[in-house]
């Protein structure tokens, strides 16, 4: 079974002449960590928004965890999906515990069970001492870690992370990446991850989808892709090989 199966996906936003997605196709089986990579303007954010049901797709088909994108897709997919947005989607005046309690309540969790789960996750991410500190006073790494906890409170089957390690220190990044590996292995959760840190993607992802100009340009295991191209020593070389060196806006 595929976690995500996208076939010939097109999308043109209202009022725009230029399509954002021009026949994107890719698929990956459940339980994998997959990197969705591409230069700025490649269409990664639009793809994620369509997968989450936040933006309506144009032509083409989308299936997430076996749920086809048709009527009521968004409501059906929400329970199974955890999303870590690129922004720190937390209320800075609230403490980490209050933030997580609020999002837990929105998922329908409450009482001692929710409290226990929040405290356990905070401890797992090394934030137990900062549980009752306002997140606005957190370091970048602490915010990123809390941001991830908020997305996994409901134990999703598919976790989508949009640049989860942008702007964090080495220690926090290492912890986040290790957590994602462990979480994928222990819970069998599929992970779709976007980043501009290609070295990170090379080490974390079992598969990468490189897209450019609204299309998939290549998909495969990072090591296999590197080996297939003799001139490439790492994923960054592969990326530049397929997307070129032209600057993007």
């Amino acid at each position, binding site marked *: 079974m595929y976690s995500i199966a996208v076939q010939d996906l097109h999308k043109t936003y209202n009022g725009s002449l230029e399509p954002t997605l021009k026949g994107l196709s890719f698929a990956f089986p459940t339980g994998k960590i997959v990197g969705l990579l591409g230069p700025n303007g490649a269409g990664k954010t639009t793809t994620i928004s369509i997968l989450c049901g936040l933006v309506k797709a144009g032509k083409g088909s989308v299936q997430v965890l076996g749920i086809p994108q048709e009527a009521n897709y968004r409501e059906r997919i929400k329970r199974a999906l955890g*999303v870590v947005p690129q922004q720190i*989607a937390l209320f800075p005046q*609230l403490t980490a515990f209050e933030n997580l309690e609020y999002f837990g309540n*929105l998922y329908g969790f409450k009482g001692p069970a929710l409290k226990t789960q929040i405290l356990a996750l905070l401890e797992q991410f090394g934030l137990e001492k900062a549980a009752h500190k306002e997140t606005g006073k957190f370091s970048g790494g602490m915010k990123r870690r809390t941001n991830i906890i908020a997305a996994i409170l409901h134990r999703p089957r598919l976790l989508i992370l949009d640049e989860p390690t942008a702007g964090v220190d080495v220690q926090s990044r290492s912890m986040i990446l290790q957590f994602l590996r462990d979480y994928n292995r222990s819970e069998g959760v599929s992970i779709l991850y976007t980043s501009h840190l290609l070295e990170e993607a090379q080490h974390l992802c079992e598969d990468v989808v490189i897209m450019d100009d609204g299309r998939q340009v290549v998909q495969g295991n990072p090591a296999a892709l590197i080996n297939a191209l003799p001139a490439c020593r790492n994923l960054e070389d592969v990326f530049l090989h397929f997307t070129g060196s032209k600057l993007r806006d």
Partner: protein
Amino acid sequence: MLRLFATIRKEYRLLFRDKMGLGLLFLMPVVLITVMALIQDTPFKDYQELKFDILTVDNDHGRLGRYIREGLDHSGQFRIVDSLQGQPVTQEQAKALVNRGDYKISIIIPQGATGAIVSNANKITNDLSRRMGLPFMAPVRLRNDSLNVVIYFDPAAKKAFKSAIHQALDNFLTQVETDLLIERIQQQLKRKGAAQQDSLDIQLKAIGLQEQSTVPGGGVDVISNSVQHNVPAWSIFAMFFIVIPIAGNMIREREDGSLLRMKLIPGSYLAILAGKMFFFVCICVVQFYLMMLVGIYLLPLLALPKLEMGHQYLPTLIIAACIGLAATAYGILIGTLFKTPNQALNFGAISIVILSAIGGIWIPLEVMPAHMQQIGRLSPLSWGLDAINNIYLRNGGMGQVWKQIGLLLGFAGTLLAIAGAVEKRRMN
């Protein structure tokens, strides 16, 4: 319900963590209504309640001058000033002083004014005597020059003020002429041997004016003064300023991704939105009653009248909630339409000022030009103020405010529908 209550608690925590913002949210409206009630107190007073210095130049030195001086003095509205530094005021001096704005008004009683009135009264009496066959004829002037009492107004004086003064002086002149005429007729009748005590003057006062309350059931009869207008009016204005924190809150949630996160959580976003709206409507209602308390307890300490809230407490609460709902919906629309806090702040603040100006918050709708009154009646602030006035001034109940409640609810519903449509369009 959990989503609703969790959102209310979240909004409560967010607001109460920002102590400065919280203080300003309640303190600034209190300052606003206090200042507005104080500075608008004088323009709201009837002219009869105010006292003016009136420069009087009496070139007549006769009965008319005395009558006018006594009449003005007796009205309690004017202080007669007829000499400056021990010297009688001259016409030229009066004109210059009024033109300079040192005095608001001056009256010049012309020489021979009394003689002219007496002559006129004699003329009428002679005519009556001739018709009744009485022999005595009183002396009359042969010249027929018309004399005028001259009034000078400060060039900056308002039209309404001039009109009120004109009317008052006209009444005095009519009164003097009437008194003299009656006196002459009485003298003629005495010569004919009529009774000493006649009832002419009594008959002239047979019909008077009496103002009665229109309030249903003869309940409270509140005079519309600066407090009765300013406290509800500026409270509604301040309540509408809730659009700034709401719009800012929504834009912030959209920018920092928490809106995205909330939308990705199973269940309708409407429950979260309802929680947010409920919280802000409650804040508006608390603001409203806080400002009413200011009108009742604080403003009287500043020598202003006490606010009267009527006797319909439940309709007042419903109206306050409906105004809060309309303001909250407006904030949500602005927060949805605009992309940055700056855009929302500028549009939100200026649009509220415009809606309040045309809606009769600054000055009552009744004194605006007819076409502006029609435009003003489209403002939700005017619906709110109308409803409050119906309760406070007209002692109305639900029957008198249901129309405004309907308008405010319709306004809120329409704005939320537009916000929903805009958000839906964004998805495409």
